[in-house]
């Protein structure tokens, strides 16, 4: 709903920041200090990295995180019939401090996006995100809504997208196993440019809206600013 035209035909008009960031190189998501200190050459470190990646891919703790419709299918994925725990990634932890993977199961709306970002920030590195369902890709069936964020990737980086509305549990199992495989191979998605970030209110660019809200919001309060006109 951003513009009257569904597609931008003029190549020079396309905003490519997000795309470029996705295409250039791998993000430094596996923070191996040893690797930083010694560079990438020594054999022993390469083997150690391989081992570490295997460990990370083999054992993953999920964040117990439910948002919307997809969380019902997510519960089914953990439960008897589909049993995600077979792959070593089916133990949900309630505290984000102890979780490795966050499955985002549902629609993100304006009020929730800052909170989700906060939860994501509370997780320790290396952390991975599985976007479950169409809503986390683009807003899904609710994309036209005045309150809906057009995809979770506007707020946090996503490693694996599982499409569907909602995806079947089998699809989610496949998505998670695919993520494990990628992690074990040392592949991580680059940290993409995210349009919406948490900022302190005083850091916002002054404009009409900010001036209007100045007496409602404290200077150092964290806010998220949405530009719905620019959203895809």
């Amino acid at each position, binding site marked *: *709903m*951003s513009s009257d035209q569904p597609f931008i035909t003029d190549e020079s008009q396309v905003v490519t920041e997000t795309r470029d960031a996705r295409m250039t190189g791998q993000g430094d998501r596996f923070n191996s200090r040893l690797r930083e200190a010694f560079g990438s050459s020594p054999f022993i470190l390469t083997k150690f990295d391989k081992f570490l990646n295997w460990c990370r891919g083999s054992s993953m703790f999920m964040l*117990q*995180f*439910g*948002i*919307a*419709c997809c*969380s*019902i*299918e997510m*519960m*089914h994925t*953990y*439960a*008897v*019939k589909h049993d995600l725990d077979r792959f070593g990634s089916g133990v*949900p932890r*309630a505290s*984000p401090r102890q979780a490795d993977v966050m499955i985002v199961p*549902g*629609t993100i*709306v*304006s*009020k*929730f*996006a*800052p*909170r*989700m970002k*906060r*939860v994501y920030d509370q997780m320790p590195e290396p952390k991975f995100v599985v976007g479950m369902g169409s809503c986390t890709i683009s807003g899904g*069936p*609710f994309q*036209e*809504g*005045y*309150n*809906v964020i057009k995809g979770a990737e506007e707020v946090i980086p996503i490693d694996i997208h599982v499409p569907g*509305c*909602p995806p*079947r549990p089998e699809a989610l199992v496949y998505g998670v196993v695919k993520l494990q495989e990628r992690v074990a191979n040392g592949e991580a998605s680059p940290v993409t440019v995210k349009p919406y970030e948490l900022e302190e*209110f005083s850091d*916002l660019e002054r404009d009409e*809206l*900010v001036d*209007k*809200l100045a007496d*409602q*919001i*404290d200077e150092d*309060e*964290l*806010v*998220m*600013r*949405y*530009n*719905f*006109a620019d959203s895809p």
Partner: protein
Amino acid sequence: MSLERPDTADDGAVERTPDELEALLGDLVVDRDDHLNAPGFVIRPDTVQETLSILKEQAGYDHLSLVTAQEYENRYESIYHLKKFDDPTQEVSIVVPADKDTPVSESAEPVFRTADWHEREAYDLMGVEYDDHPDLRRILLPETWQGHPLSMDYDQERPQIASLPEHANPLQEHHKDAESDTMFLNIGPHHPATHGVLHLKTVLDGEQVVDVEPDIGYLHRCEEQMAQNGTYRHQIMPYPDRWDYISAGLLNEFAYARAAEDLADIEVPEYAQVIRTMGAEMSRIAAHMLALATFALDINGDFTATFMYAINDRERVQNLLEDLTGQRLMFNYFRLGGVVWDLPEPREEFFSKTRDFLDQLPESIEEYHNLITSNEIFQMRTIDTGVLPPEVAKNYGATGPVARGSGVDYDLRRDDPYGYYDELDWDVVTEDGCDNFSRLLVRMREVEESAKIIEQCVDLLEDWPEDERNIQANVPRTLRPDDDTEIYRAVEGAKGELGIYIRSDGTDKPARFKIRSPCFSNLQTLPEMANGEYIPDVVAALGSLDIVLGEVDR
């Protein structure tokens, strides 16, 4: 027959004709604005409380089902849809116009507590202000939102700012002295016990809850806007599945189908009604199973046996529903005038699968009774906690298992029949305990009743003559109901009275589409149940309310 209501000799149940009501209200009535479902009286914006209390006290309209706000070219309007708990077919709509430039009308909150949140929502989305409202703030959108999104001149592309404030302790001042002090605790929006994204602003005195205020809107997906942008015939039906997404999809679709069919005057073939009824009750079983599972999760504390078993039973129902509709969760199976396709072939296989499920269901329920309801610790935790007296429940407009767990005998399937329910033999379940335990028991017993209904439907469908299997009435390709026709129709969803208000404007899309969500009203009762209790009881009470945030926030 069991469907007869137990006789309650109550003056409130006496039916009055619209003219008698008009005489009762006297000068308060400015004009008549009848809706398809009920007589409508237009009143002045400053006489809301007076009118509603006359209707409540003298005419017995004790159930404020829904408050709808809408904007016309020349005015705003708030509609109070009133019903009786004793007989929900007796309805009346009170229409309160408000000025276009400064839309202000009197609040109904002193008469009906439930109006509190409904009016906040109307303010939030439509911009109507209510005088005398105790706490008129935004409810679904962030506090800092600009504009009222369902009003006519709202620009959807304007930038917005959402803040992440540190909430202050509302009781800090008058609870802080030498002896006691309170602690403010945010439970949610991401917390294992909130069943989604609910935020409870809780004030604790030690482990005891002094004050709890639910903060909703973390899943406000603009469902009403979505429906208003869709055409009646095809584009709206997928959305109801996503209101109450706990597999209760068919029940929600029933709500839209009923409202729209009554609006457009479509007669549904009987065969389709039987299929609808059967599918809806399967959905109800699935929904109640999840309620049971998550409640056990809240009490037990881990993904334990009861949770897993209940999910397993849900899988079985979902398999049946998948056979029937082709989908596990978002069915999109109903069409206006019928259903999209007939039962799966071979029919015998579907029937025998369904029968197998029904046969093993009593065994599962027995197992749940062994595991949880007969467990002493479980009883200790749930009996006499989260008490919701029937009067309070009615005042808050609580419906469904929450109301029935408080002894309010109210079930739209029986009291305002639709589908094929009035032809079948089943009972309405009520419990008098008013506590967490009775609400759970009501759900478990309702599963048995639903099984009874499904069984009868299966019998009927099996013997249905082959040439009379008509699944779809003749419905025009484009539906254009008459201009300015208004209707409010409700069905018994998994969580209670799920109603839909539609106003048509002569086009193929509704001009106003308002959803009456049972969870929205039920969740409002949480402070009544939780204040003074311990934190674990709040969690248990929340679990026993069985809210779905998709439906609360819409």
